[in-house]
């Protein structure tokens, strides 16, 4: 290994260490950011509507894996994209890391990986919260490893999409980012409904197939609740790996375009 590679690896860990340190310091606000929305959704749709008799008894069971999937994907996406939009515009904080002795591609990968870590952490937090809130959860535990795999891949895809969006969206457009990107992703990701049962609503099923989150939700739900109609696991796996590669490459390309003139 050359000296440059060694110093690049050291710099990569130091840059990652900075993000871990900052997250540790901002833990309360981070928790609020990642938990309020999914907990509220789970509470209203899984608990309140159920007790009022507006949803069928099994609905909360279908919802929980979807909420975990949603958190893994969306928290990773948001935590990569929002800071990046700011970093590249008025704060220019990232310049110090772009001038560190490591390839700029690695800085992009670090951003993506760290966003994915945060997504994964948020998704893991949903397990105990869901169990506490819903009381009994009838999961097939043999499917847990595959569910976790989907969750990990979901976080990575979230980070990759976040890198793409964060490097592509100009700062003055950040306010419409929520309306035109995040909201559609939340509601077309099969996290509140099983995708396989959408055959009566064909066009919507097709729309959902374009959202990577659909494959995280379907993969997790299929593994944990095998009796609910679901997409084939290999399709989920392939789609998530594909999305990882495509958005990862696209994100790095956009990042380099913003970082270098």
């Amino acid at each position: 290994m050359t000296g440059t590679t060694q110093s690049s690896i050291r710099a990569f860990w130091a840059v990652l260490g900075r993000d871990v340190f900052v997250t540790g310091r901002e833990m309360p606000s981070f928790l609020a950011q990642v938990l309020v929305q999914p907990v509220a959704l789970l509470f209203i749709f899984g608990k309140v509507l159920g007790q009022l008799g507006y949803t069928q008894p099994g609905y909360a069971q279908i919802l929980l894996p979807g909420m975990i999937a949603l958190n893994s994907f969306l928290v990773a996406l948001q935590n990569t994209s929002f800071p990046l939009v700011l970093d590249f515009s008025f704060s220019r904080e990232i310049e110090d890391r772009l001038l560190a002795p490591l390839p700029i591609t690695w800085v992009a990968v670090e951003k993506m990986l760290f966003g994915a870590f945060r997504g994964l952490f948020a998704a893991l937090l949903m397990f105990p919260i869901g169990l506490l809130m819903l009381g009994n959860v009838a999961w097939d535990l043999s499917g847990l490893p595959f569910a976790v795999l989907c969750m990990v891949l979901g976080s990575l895809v979230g980070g990759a999409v976040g890198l793409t969006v964060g490097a592509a969206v100009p700062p003055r457009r950040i306010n419409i980012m929520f309306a035109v990107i995040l909201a559609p992703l939340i509601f077309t990701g099969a996290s509140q409904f099983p995708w396989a049962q959408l055959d009566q609503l064909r066009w919507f099923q097709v729309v959902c197939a374009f959202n990577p989150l659909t494959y995280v939700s379907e993969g997790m739900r299929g593994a944990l609740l095998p009796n609910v109609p679901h997409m084939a696991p290999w399709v989920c796996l392939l789609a998530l790996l594909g999305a990882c590669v495509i958005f990862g490459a696209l994100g790095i390309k956009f990042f380099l375009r913003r970082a270098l003139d």
Partner: protein
Amino acid sequence: MTAAVEVADLVKHYPKSTRNAVDGLSFRVRHGEIFGLLGPNGAGKTTTVGILTTRIVLTGGSATIGGVDVARDPVAARSKVAVVPQRVNLDRSLNARQNLLFHASYHGIGRSERHALATRLMERMGLADKSKARIDDLSGGQAQRLMIARALIHRPEVLFLDEPSTGLDPQARLFVHDRVNDLRSEGVTVVLTTHDMEEAEKLSDRVGVVDHGRMLTVDTPTALIRSLPGSGTIDARLRPNGFDSDKLTGLLSDIPGVRRVEAPGGSTALDGVSPETELRLYVDGEPGSLLGPIAAKLHDNDITVSDLSLGSASLEDVFIELTGRDLR
């Protein structure tokens, strides 16, 4: 011995632009030298510094830092340079001291060493009591000094200072100037870009004047001033006694040795009661020898002189002579 910075036939063309931002620029900066890069807005200074610090990809030519080609090995080049930008780009999620510590860790400096260096640099930059301060609570001058400390902590071979004293009060400006002079004695090479001619003249060992992406001239400030035609000046304050300014200028320009006459301050009196005019005469050779002829000529024309004083041209005169008076 290799130069600290070597730029040869450097070209940068931005995709949407009609002309080259940097257009065949060449210069060398020696080790331990303070080099001033001067030029009007849009001359290509920032682009050149951007290329040397690996943030801008060059279109043609070559640029090396301590023998390392910035285009071929940007990662190695980044460990040799440091930049103090004009705009604050400190990490707002960290406090003042942490900004130094994390920067040092990106550059692979071990834990105990970076703590010792951070303490020393914070002290040297007059920030010892600010180590826990949030970035948003620092004044402009403090943020600037913290950025200089951050730049120095990984012991760069070449430090780039972009407009180091823009927006600073005179005290902070002097402090920064003193620190830059300290760097000279420590053998750190400094490249500074500035519009402030006085600053450039005071700090730089040599200056290069850039315009339209090309290097117009490189030399020591003294040599540049000396090379300027009409580099001596005589400032005259007088009552024109009915002469209008064109006639007055013509009268004085006729004196052998006077190259041109300008009215920098214009007329100073308001009501025409006793209008006093200030003129600056640019002269060749020793200005003192022309005092007599000028005084005599004015006296012959019944023009009252209240002051005649000697001066010399400044770097600003050189700059204007080379780059013109047009606004950019």
